[in-house]
């Protein structure tokens, strides 16, 4: 579907979500070249000046505001209208607050899925509609194609860049108004297009996983958001033995080995986090692998199944999907059974279900 629309001869009004990076810039340039009326919008979701300018007395450089300027420069070089919309409050409410809640509940959240779901494909989509746009386009590596008259989500052609994992919440209505112009391209092709268009961002580095924690210090970020305090608790071996103290469960994630400060004959890994008892559970390597787990709040891009379904299941971004059996539950969750035990089944991450390269649904690992 994507292909037919972006190559259609009737010019459409299309809002492009521009981040200042190479992907969304090429996305805008391609659509513009095809003769569409393209409008660039950058979402400002985070007041980055808070990192450098807490009291308003001094000023410093601000790398992420630079991205807004990059996006603006690209839009200006393409001679298209460009706007910045401020979603700071919404981002705080829907993404940051959830991010913190999840960590303090002993889970490892995936804010990018929520940001796509709420910020891009609800709020920004609504903005595009307010501007009378026919479509919202993003630089995601994913594809929307029609199956039996309904839009369906597929992996991007570039296996290394595929971002369909982040998009499993898209509804058919959203997909009908969404374009992924890069879905059938490889990253190399996109960079070549950036060169061809003479975009200054062609050589820009890939953005980081979590944009609002640029230094990777999650614990520091969480304490800034929620305050520090008495968060210490016990580190327990899987067999029940108390091995030491932790400094707050939000500092730990499943599979973590470093920084535990324990002495034990074998290497120990975090294998569980028990928020109600404020405990971190550690164990030997084999305990990291699980065959069975549960997901909550499933969303389906097919008719919700009534009986067990064989799928390929991806449990984190860039994870190679593994064959699994999905048994839907009446409460909207599902029981998942891999064909063989897998490492890194992490509560709070999304489990996304594929049939071949099509996304048919997903849920949140409990």
């Amino acid at each position, binding site marked *: 579907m994507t292909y037919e629309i972006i190559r259609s001869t009737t010019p459409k009004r299309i809002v492009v979500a521009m981040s200042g990076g190479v992907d969304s810039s090429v996305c805008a340039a391609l659509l513009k070249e095809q003769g569409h009326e393209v*409008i660039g919008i950058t979402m400002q979701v985070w007041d980055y000046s808070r990192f450098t300018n807490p009291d*308003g007395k001094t000023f410093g450089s601000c790398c992420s505001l630079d991205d807004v300027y990059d996006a603006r420069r690209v839009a200006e070089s393409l001679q298209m209208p460009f706007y*910045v919309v401020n979603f700071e409050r919404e981002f705080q409410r829907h993404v940051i607050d959830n991010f913190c809640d999840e960590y303090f509940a002993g889970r490892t959240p995936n804010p990018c899925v929520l940001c796509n779901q709420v910020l891009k494909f609800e709020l920004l989509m609504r*903005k595009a509609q*307010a*501007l009378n746009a026919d479509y919202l386009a993003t630089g995601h590596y994913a594809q929307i194609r029609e199956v039996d008259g309904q839009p369906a989500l597929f992996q991007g052609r570039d296996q290394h860049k595929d971002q369909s994992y982040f998009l499993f919440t898209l509804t058919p209505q959203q997909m009908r108004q969404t374009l992924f112009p890069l879905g059938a391209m490889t990253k190399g092709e996109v960079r070549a297009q950036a060169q061809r268009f003479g975009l200054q961002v062609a050589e820009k580095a890939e953005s980081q996983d979590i944009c609002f924690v640029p230094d990777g210090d999650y614990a520091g970020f969480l304490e800034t958001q929620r305050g520090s305090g008495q968060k210490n608790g016990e580190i327990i071996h899987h067999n029940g033995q108390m091995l030491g103290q932790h400094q707050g469960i939000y500092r730990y994630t499943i599979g973590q080995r470093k920084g535990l400060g324990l002495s034990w004959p074998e290497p120990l890994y975090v294998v569980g986090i028990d928020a109600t008892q404020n405990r971190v559970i550690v164990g030997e390597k084999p305990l990291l692998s699980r065959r069975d787990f549960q997901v909550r709040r499933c969303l389906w891009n097919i008719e919700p199944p009534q009986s067990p379904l064989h799928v390929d299941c991806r449990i984190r971004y860039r994870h190679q999907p593994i064959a699994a059996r999905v048994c839907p539950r009446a409460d909207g969750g599902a029981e998942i059974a891999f064909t063989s035990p897998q490492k890194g089944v992490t509560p709070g991450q999304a489990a996304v279900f594929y049939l071949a390269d099509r996304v048919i649904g997903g849920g949140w690992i409990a």
Partner: protein
Amino acid sequence: MMTPIYLDHNATTAVHPTVVDAMLPWLTQHYGNPSSVHWAGRAANAALEKAREQVASLLNASVNDIIFTSGGTEGDNFAIKGTALQRAEQGRHLITTAVEHPAVLETCRALERQGWQVSYLPVDSQGNLDLAQLESNIQPQTQLISVMWANNEIGNIYPLAEISVIAKARGVCLHSDAVQVAGRLPIDVQATGLDLAVISGHKFGAPKGVGALFVKSGNRLEPLMHGGSQERHRRGGTSNLASIVGLGKACELAGVEMQQNAVHVAQLRERLQQGIRRGIRGVFFHGAQQSDHRLPNTLNASFAGISGESLLMSLDLKGIAVSSGSACSSGSLEASHVMTALGVAPQLAQSSIRFSLGPTNTAAEIDYVIDELAAAVSRLRQISPFENF
């Protein structure tokens, strides 16, 4: 996009063609530094001083009381910080209003961080100041009262002559940010009794980056820019000559054209306001509504139930340039401090749009804007999640 229509003259204006002509020789032929002794410098200095006379004439100021600056923000910083630094020993209190331009407000806040006390006078729901309250805020420590001549967002004109009587009686220095008034309505700094006043060229047909500060003789200011003898040691830095020549010419033209321009834009503003009233439900106009209490070119309205940002973008895509309550392109989220000071509810403040007209606008443009505005408001209300008017 159709022929662009520009209704954002409080943000900036086009350079007047006559101003361009006046400036050109100072970009293409003459290159002297007005501070130089030789022939090149003398020619440049003559142009600089002619411009000073033109500016002084528009303001009815003495020539020696005009200091050229880079514009309104520098002028306000200079007037306020310059006074504060000069008089820090005598007291550290300032009075200003809650609706000033950020060039004044942020300068005052910067001084607060250095130990100054600042009183921010509130306004009523029409944007009017209570002069009795102003007077009661004057203390023995008060060194400066800073009140804008006209507000950039809602167009209210403040009674500087009356404020001056109060300030004089209490022996307090009076500064006015006159950026939105200069070149649009008559300014007489002597009759009004101002000690300091700031104008900016690009609001009335001169280029961006040039303005002037009026400092009544006898007032001493600590300079902001050290390092040169320009402007009689009050503002260092090589004179921005071509732009200053442009500012002078714009002042001269304003003296001739101001009256008829004001009548013209007032008629168009009335046409716009009537058209909005007739064609659109759920509209709230902000600021003073009596014509002698507001700028002739400014109209600020909220369209209940929709976001001003979306409306601004929709009009832009139709070629119509206006501005919204939260005007910052860096994506500032806060509702305009002016709307907040008026007590406008946040959601209504977020739906406000400022139209500011200029002499080149036409009745046909206004009629087109009314039609497009009605269509955009109607469409946005249909998809708005909170239609509640």
